[in-house]
């Protein structure tokens, strides 16, 4: 039943995962399982994952959040609010090895699909839940978004008293919560292989954000805000072509080398002298000459898309390509780690809405007439019908 073209080691080959996630925090965990070789089936409601519906100029009705988070998976549509859909969903989860979800705690219980029930029927099930605020605690049942959790966790800063606080400019918990959950789930999988026992692993966007914030020191109430480098020779300088070059002449040897390059003597130059030197050449030329002299420097890329453009096709640690059914070759995040030098990333695009509904349900043992009946009742949607549903 090889559906997706995959490369690299597939340590999770043969493992079946039901992924009931939306947006970022859960879908990343499912993607990691898929790229380790598991058959990950992403279940969407009839109106689609909200990440899919965050439209973008290039991909139109397929938001890039969805494109990135759900590559390497298969996709089906089940409406769990429909009684037949709910029963079908339970059937799929109970036939899987791992169930990944990022609903607010308590939501699945309302449908009779909580871990307590599922594990009573299938004790070796591993469930990974990635919520916003955590599985327990006073805020656990509140809706949680990355920005709100950045605010709560101290990641937003004011440049000065009275100024509008702003975020750090990078995703924190949405990105890291699912990674921590995946770490726990992989460990749980290893234990299940040894003992036959399943378990429930929980993590959250908040735990991901705090993991990011609190790794480098204990929490101190008199904590001072960190600020950007104040070293004038560890700073950005603008090149002739308008691009920025970060010169990291922190060490004495690098300062001497910079002095030689800029003014022909080993005395460290002033920031103004360094700026004048960089501004007289292109960024590429400046980086090359600085590197030749042993001065650490790099062009400041304007964003990750800039890196992907530069690395597309020749560095899988940075970016790998998938073939989109309408847009052709797309480049998204590369391999996160390697085993014996081989990456785990696969090359299947994110599924279209309901792309694999019939295929998956047939594999799970449903007859064609049963699938048709479910389609008629609105419990499931296949790709052929999804355009009609979306339009409706």
């Amino acid at each position, binding site marked *: 039943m090889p559906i997706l073209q995959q490369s690299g080691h597939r*340590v999770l080959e043969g493992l079946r995962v039901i992924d009931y996630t939306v947006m970022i925090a859960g879908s990343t965990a499912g993607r990691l399982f898929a790229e380790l070789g598991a058959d990950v089936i992403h279940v969407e409601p009839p109106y689609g994952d909200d990440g899919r519906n*965050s*439209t973008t100029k290039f991909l139109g009705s397929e938001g*890039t*959040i969805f494109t*990135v988070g759900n590559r390497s998976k298969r996709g089906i549509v089940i409406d769990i609010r429909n009684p037949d859909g709910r029963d079908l969903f339970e059937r799929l989860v109970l036939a899987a090895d791992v169930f990944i979800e990022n609903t607010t705690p308590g939501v699945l219980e309302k449908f009779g699909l909580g871990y307590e029930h599922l594990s009573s029927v299938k004790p070796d099930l591993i469930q990974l839940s990635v919520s916003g605020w*955590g*599985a327990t605690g006073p805020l656990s049942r509140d809706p949680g978004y990355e920005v*709100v959790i950045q*605010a*709560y*966790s*101290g990641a*937003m800063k*004011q440049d000065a008293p009275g100024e509008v*606080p702003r975020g*750090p*400019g*990078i*995703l924190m918990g949405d990105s890291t919560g699912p990674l921590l*959950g995946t*770490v*726990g789930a*992989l*460990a*749980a*999988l*290893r234990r299940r292989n040894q003992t036959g026992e399943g378990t429930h692993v929980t*993590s959250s966007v*908040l*735990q991901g954000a*705090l*993991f*990011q914030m609190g*790794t480098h*020191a*204990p929490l101190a109430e008199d904590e001072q*805000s960190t600020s950007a*480098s104040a070293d004038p020779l560890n700073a950005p300088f603008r090149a002739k072509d308008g691009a920025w070059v*970060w010169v*990291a002449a*922190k060490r004495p040897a690098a300062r001497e080398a910079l002095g030689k390059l800029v003014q022909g003597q080993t005395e460290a130059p002033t920031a103004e002298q360094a700026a004048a030197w960089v501004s007289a050449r292109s960024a590429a030329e400046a980086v090359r000459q600085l*590197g030749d002299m042993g001065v*650490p420097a790099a062009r400041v890329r304007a*964003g*990750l*898309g800039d*890196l992907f453009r*530069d*690395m597309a096709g020749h560095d899988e640690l940075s970016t790998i390509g998938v073939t989109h059914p309408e*847009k*052709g070759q797309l*480049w*998204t*995040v*590369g391999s*996160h*780690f390697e*085993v014996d030098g081989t990456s*785990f990333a696969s090359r299947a695009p994110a599924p279209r809405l309901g792309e694999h509904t019939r295929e998956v349900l047939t594999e799970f043992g449903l007859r064609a007439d049963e699938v048709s009946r479910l389609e008629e009742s609105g419990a499931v949607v296949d790709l052929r019908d999804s355009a009609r549903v979306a339009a409706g």
Partner: protein
Amino acid sequence: MSISLLSDLTVVDLTTTPAGATAARLYADLGARVIRIEATGIETPEDDVGLSPEAGLVANRSKESVAIDFASRESSDVLARLLGQADLLVEDLGAEVRAGIGLACGEHRAAHPSLVHVALDWWPESGAGAGLPRSRELLQATVGTMVFDAPGGAPRPVSAVPVGEPTAATFAVMAGLSALLRRDATGVVSCGSTSVYQGAIQPASTGVVYAEDDQEADTTGPVARRALGGFGPFECADGEWVFVAGWTDRQFQAVCRLAGYDHIAEDPAYGSRSLRQETGEDLNAIVAAWVSGLQSNDLIDQLRSARVPVARIAQTTAQLIHDSHAVETGMVTQVGNGADQSWQIGTVFEVAGERPDIRPAPAPGADSIAVLERLGLTSDEVSDLLRRGVISQPERGAR
């Protein structure tokens, strides 16, 4: 009770950076016995990305510590004894040092045929950044995570969080667990590798797609973001800032109704996010006026009742020491006793509702004698190693 998923594993931690040490700590959080080697006599780069004593309090907790002087000839024997009884080695020494002490991947496989080895470097061996020194600024410049406050303005590094390092720690654990799963299933023993560079890409990668024929893709510079109505930071009457996230149509409508603007809630002109972006600043001026008349506690209560995502904007993470949710859940916790006590980030995951067993970071070498005796060395052998300075252990109570 605590998490014991990996209680059958012994991990040797030969790391010198926050990312590496944090990776090893995650194994401890999952129940593994983690023996940290405090290595002297190894040349590590003179830079500012090494593990500081402060960072060590967080990254080295729940471990045991053995201090080994790698300048001594016998150090390799001690290391070999440790690795001989370990399942997994985590290190971040870099290719040169790694090779210098005989730990190049695969090189020690004959001696330790079942040992999984995970290396976490700053840059990968090839590709962007390869050959550059370890530097947080060069990492961000290379990956493209620096912030441009205004089009045409100078870039500045993201400074509120360590970009790439925590994420790379999780990747190192995934690499190790993948290799262990593979070893368990097939008997094949592997080397895993990752880098802080790869860790830096991940948090920025959500929603980033590059296509050669995407004529509208902006890879040349920053773009000013448009405000979304009902979504942003707002200042309350008590001077506190609160983030209101009226992201979905329902949440936006709830904000409008609470603010007394039912007609806006019902107006199809604001019926989607893209429409609310077109008028974002005007809508947010209305929300700001409403919020400015409320105490922050009152605002938060109202929005929570209406199921609109909301949070007070904390000035620092340390403020969570006084937050009931953060403390009750163990996400922020006290570690240690007496003068050594500190508040730290706590549990990062739970298993069957159980949290990790969090113990204070040991003093460097605090467990040298006990660990080596457990490996089968006699008291005389351990004393001899101590006398010759191959290993060391501080006086009890020293840190």
